[in-house]
């Protein structure tokens, strides 16, 4: 018998045994109607050619392995960053189950989120009853301080009017009249999760600043010296927000993080289950209108929110997921300028340490070619950092990137000789990336967990940076922003380069002349 009860093997080893090899081979010949090996080999090689790439890029209707998710996912992300806020997704229930598992697998934390559970009846007659009952149930069961409503495609196709529905729900006493229920329409068939973040964040600020859907007077802005901070949809929210707060405290500025997910996705195991933890208080969210200005770390996550804030008289500045020396420089200088403070020496020292670290390691990255994919801002930030390190991005791809994003990427490439051979690919998926990895032959790939299939198929080693990361643990706890964050990204890249170096030089008396203990 293949499995020995005295020594139980798991599936890693078990199915490599000879008995299993036979069994699986038989399956293949008897059940699979397989192509001859030569033919498989021919097609495999053909898929690596320019010809195949051209065919692949002429795809019009089919998306294969998309590197994006839908709007409500981003809306849920924005909502959980507020104090005791329950994200409520109006539409069919299955979507919400996906968001919860998606976030839980990445952050290794429970994610509280409810649905109005629309069914076929609701599809025909509209979802009003679901909204009225749903809000009442959610309010009573989960005792939130705020319920942030977004929508799935189902509600959007029917055209449910959130504003009117929430009003009706309050009239029917699902919730107290004064209870905060900001809302945003977030159809999945428009944009991606970053659009959803934008819509939801704007919805929440609009709610507090512009008279709570005509149930309260609009707030009058009385400018103060405070700075608002928007992180945008960020898989590193836990580490990044803590790092940004540390920097702000160091700079001794007044600030409000709008949407602070760092505690709710990192609750301690101490015997207490916290359904909600931390987050921006509702009071702070309202007072944020008085701030001097607002910083967005991700331009493409705040395309609507930032102009909305600017229209209320604040200064605004947007970055593209700043990583590394120059990008962090611009970020902290803008914060200092806006808040009217000096850059503290301690921060300058951190900068010096990052410069030092990069100088120590530059030889290993210089001239290496990188393919990068991710959300538009992250892809920009990573490409910029890679160029700063002396690496050469050759492909930068973003499934949810726009043409405007591609133009901005091109400007970045044009700004440095290290970007000379790079192209940006907006709106393309990971199957396009697969072709590009064959034809452009980069040395390394930077992307999320899904990139592991590309690594397997093309042999290009994957550096895991992005969202989601399911198959490595706790990466979200380490910042990628700030000089400290830049150091983390540097180390992540270097580790993979060295592992790859070791793995390709470890055959005794064949390749091990380069298998060194000092790298």
């Amino acid at each position, binding site marked *: 018998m293949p499995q020995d009860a005295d020594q*139980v093997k798991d*599936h890693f080893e078990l199915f490599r045994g000879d008995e299993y090899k036979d069994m699986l081979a038989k399956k293949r010949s008897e059940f699979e109607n397989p192509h001859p090996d030569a033919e498989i080999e021919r097609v495999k090689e053909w898929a690596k050619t320019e010809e195949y790439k051209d065919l692949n890029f002429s795809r019009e209707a089919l998306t294969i392995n998309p590197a994006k998710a*839908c709007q409500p996912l981003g809306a849920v992300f924005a909502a959980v960053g507020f104090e005791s806020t329950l994200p409520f997704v109006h539409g069919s229930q299955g979507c919400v189950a996906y968001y919860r*598992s998606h976030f839980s697998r990445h952050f290794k934390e429970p994610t509280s989120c409810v649905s109005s559970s*629309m069914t076929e009846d609701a*599809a025909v007659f509209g979802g009003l009853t679901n909204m009225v009952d749903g809000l009442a149930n959610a309010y009573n069961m989960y005792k939130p301080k705020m319920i942030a409503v977004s929508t799935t495609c189902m509600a959007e196709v029917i055209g449910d009017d959130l504003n009117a529905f929430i009003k009706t729900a309050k009239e029917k006493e699902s919730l107290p009249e004064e209870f905060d229920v900001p809302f945003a329409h977030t159809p999945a*068939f428009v944009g991606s999760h970053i659009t959803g973040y934008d819509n939801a964040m704007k919805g929440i600020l609009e709610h507090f600043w512009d008279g709570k859907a005509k149930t309260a007077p609009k707030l009058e802005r009385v400018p103060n010296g405070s700075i608002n901070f928007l992180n945008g949809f960020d898989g590193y929210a836990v580490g990044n927000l803590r790092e940004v707060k540390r920097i702000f405290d160091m700079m001794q500025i007044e600030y409000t993080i709008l949407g602070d997910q760092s505690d709710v996705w990192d609750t301690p195991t101490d015997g207490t289950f916290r359904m909600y933890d931390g987050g921006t208080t509702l009071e702070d969210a309202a007072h944020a209108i008085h701030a001097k200005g607002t910083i967005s770390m991700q331009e493409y996550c705040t395309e609507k929110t930032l102009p909305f804030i600017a229209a209320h008289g604040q200064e605004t500045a947007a970055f593209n997921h700043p990583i590394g020396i120059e990008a962090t420089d611009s970020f902290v200088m803008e914060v200092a300028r806006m808040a009217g403070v000096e850059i503290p020496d301690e921060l300058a020292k951190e900068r010096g340490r990052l410069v030092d670290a990069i100088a120590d390691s530059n030889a290993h990255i210089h001239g290496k070619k990188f393919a990068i994919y991710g959300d538009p801002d992250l892809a920009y930030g990573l490409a910029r950092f890679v160029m700063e390190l002396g690496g050469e991005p050759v492909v930068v791809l973003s499934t949810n990137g726009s043409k405007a994003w591609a133009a901005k990427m091109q400007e970045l490439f044009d700004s440095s000789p290290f970007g000379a051979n790079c192209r940006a690919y907006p709106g393309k998926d990971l199957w396009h990336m697969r072709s590009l990895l064959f034809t452009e032959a980069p040395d390394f790939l930077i992307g999320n967990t899904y990139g592991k299939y590309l690594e397997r198929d093309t042999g290009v080693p994957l550096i895991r940076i992005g969202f989601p990361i399911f198959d490595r643990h706790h990466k979200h706890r380490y910042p990628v922003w700030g000089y400290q964050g830049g150091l983390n990204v540097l180390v992540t890249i270097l580790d993979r380069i060295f592992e790859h170096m070791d793995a390709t030089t470890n055959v005794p008396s064949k390749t091990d002349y380069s298998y060194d203990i000092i790298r």
Partner: protein
Amino acid sequence: MTSLNQTIQDVFNEPACGKNQAKSDKERKKGCSKPLQPGGAAGGCAFDGAKIALQPITDVAHLVHGPIACEGNSWDNRGAASSGSTLYRTGFTTDMTENDIVFGGEKHLFKAIREIIEKYAPPAVFVYETCVPAMIGDDIDTVCTKAAEKFGTPCIPIHSPGFLGPKNLGNKLAGEAMLKHVIGTKEPEYTTPYDINVIGEYNLSGELWQIKPLLDELGIRILSCISGDARYEEVAWSHRAKAAMMVCSKAMINVARKMEERYGIPFFEGSFYGIEDMSDTLREIAGLLIQQGAHPELMARTEAVIAREEARAWAAIEPYRPRLAGKKVLLVTGGVKSWSVVAALREAGLRVVGTSVKKSTREDKDKIKKLMGDEAHMFDNLAPREMYRKLKEAEADIMLSGGRSQFIALKASMPWMDINQERHVAFAGYHGMVAMVAEIDRTLANPVWQEVRRPAPWDRVEAPQQAGREAA
């Protein structure tokens, strides 16, 4: 009434389902999915259920017709193992946008099917209908028929918009699609009197493979597995099996029952979990095959294998008994696992202090009662807060559940082990049970639980000597 509605009614009117038989006509019409509570934290939808049920068919291209929501959040999220093609792990979607919703998504879908066939030449394309195309009235049946005619590749419409109901309904709708369009469309090269179907087994972590050597030894051939490590062809010729085993009872009972009706393939409901359950399963398979004309000596051979394997498994579990005896287990899973695992755990000397019956049938519940007697704490779907309270009160030593409850368990200081689809150890068969017991033992012995359960040293209020004892 639309044909989809008819299908749903049909699925609800399941004569082989004990729960259904006990209902009045009127109740039966209403269907068996409990109305979902708006405002609650819900589980997966019908689409999720359909995808889960069919995705393990490895060489098929699974195309999700809908906006990015359905596939963007979910592609490749299950550990169903394949011995061949990995096409099933590739996420195909039409990624519908506003234009499709205004002008209809049919042409888009047709093109997408063409692009798949040109690129991958799969034996079939499964097209999953999600909420949006269902609402805007895309006629995916016609698109599939036309595409199949034009490209010569079967294109199978799976009607599974999420709003129809929960995951379980989706499993059944997936089954209906197989019955309607796939099963019976091909012939196997040869048949034997020892051919069986295994229905509702997904080969998670390679569990089917763990069982298969036993069947191989007995000369029993799995003609078709629906759907673990399956190829399109084997599903298409599954109507030639002599007998069938239904594994996940609520998921695809309609497939087993209708195949009995149409093709005269008798089936039984069995489980690969638990030593005695595994033996019963082998006996049932042999019995049904003999009844269908296989040589009666099969039973003697089966009994011999059972005796040998049981002895080996018991012997392997024996050393764990003293370590595990009296340890309390809280089981949060559903359906068939709510009882089949109970039996196995008791075999290892563990005490099951509670089990969830969220997706369990009445028979499932009866079986739990029979197994656990009056000490059976059964509870239904739990909200996180409620689950947290139960966990705190249960004073169990370990909770076995799926991934979604994991984190709540930990926050409640409850040692936890994964027994659902995301786990990485196969628990099926005789050795699978040994593996599970070993895994529980290993989990319980992990030093982290001590830290999880006690406060920081400066917060410990016990008298000094007590603290000293704890340290010892």
